């Protein structure tokens, strides 16, 4: 299997420019957070349970997006697209729930 000569900056082993450590760190981080979220789910925190579960999921998502998906060094436009997705998702959630939450509210116009 011919290993083509790597012409990245000379003198630096190929694997250095593509370090393994961040991937492994993220892997163990995600595993840890999964274990955490499962155990915390059994602890009765009242209404906080959902927020905690979503917060942990958010952190896991950030880890995947930032490290595994190389977003930081993919340029401004990719950042913009990723955040546009989040923004319009939130618009969908907010304006839909705005209807359901206020359906019982009677509007008077004194």
């Amino acid at each position, binding site marked *: 299997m011919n290993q083509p000569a790597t012409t990245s900056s000379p003198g630096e082993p190929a694997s250095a420019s593509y370090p393994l450590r961040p991937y492994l760190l993220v892997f163990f981080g995600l595993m840890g957070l999964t274990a955490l979220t499962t155990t915390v789910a059994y602890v009765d925190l009242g209404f906080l349970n959902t927020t905690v579960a979503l917060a942990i999921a958010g952190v896991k998502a950030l880890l995947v997006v930032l490290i595994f998906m190389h977003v930081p060094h993919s340029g401004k436009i990719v950042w913009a697209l990723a955040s546009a997705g989040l923004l319009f998702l939130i618009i969908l959630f907010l304006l839909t729930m705005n209807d359901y939450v206020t359906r019982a509210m*009677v509007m*008077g*116009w004194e």
Partner: protein
Amino acid sequence: MLEKLGIFPEAASEFADQVDYLYFFLIGVTIFFVTVIVAALAYLSVRYRHRRSPVPTPVHGSILLELTWSGIPLVIALFIFGWGAKLYIEHQDMPPDGIEISVTGKQWMWKLQHPSGQREINALHVPVGVPILLTMTSEDVIHSFYVPAFRFKRDVVPGVYTRAHFTADKTGSFHLFCAEYCGTDHSVMIGKVVVMEPSEYEAWLSGQPAGETPVQAGERLFTDLRCNTCHAAGSDQKGPDLAGVFGSKRLLVGGGEAIADEEYIRESILRPARKVVFGYEPLMPTYQGQVNETQILSLMAYLKTLGGAAEGANP
């Protein structure tokens, strides 16, 4: 005047007149802007046509001009929004008293029921000047109860009670349409709303075969469906006593509380386990499929009469 030409609908309710004023204002705004734009287009096209000005001279944009022609439309837009919103909200809250009519939309007919038991299909006889309070639902798909003469339209959605009202201020017979597409005979699901003098209405009412009033039907159903075995006072009280239930606040199992309005009662009949009153077990079986919408309305009419907090029962 315009009605005669057949290009403007009759206005038979006070709300209709207000909607018409707003409509004319908006027509004015549209005519004004369209004439301004078309006149500008025409004048500029003719004045600067190629033959008359063969050489175009560049023109600098002007921020001020841009701000004016986005600011002024914004102000007009917000004014129109305000006027429309005020009209809509004022018409939202139900007048305290009036004739309670229950409307049930069913694939391709309107079933209407008067408080005194008269049932009508695709027709509604109402006295002039008296607020008509509608409790509307649908037995299958979404329909829409639309009376153009009153500028009144509300969708009837299955599984939900819609409360709405209108007040006719002119006698006569007006169109009733279904406005939300509901299948093959959507265009035949129409009828008449006949507005009569109060005396005529009473005569019509008494002339009608006074069927079982909803309250009587409700009472009969209350025993037929054996609700009384658990709910009647003095029984072994497996279910909460229903005297004065309508409008009261119910404490629920698992915390939280709910006002026992139409929605709550319908839900408790069809899906009792959803909201169980504190201190009771979720033993009540579901009556889903055993009672139709009109029967639920009758049960509700009966429960309203079981004394307690409900406002004075209507005539």
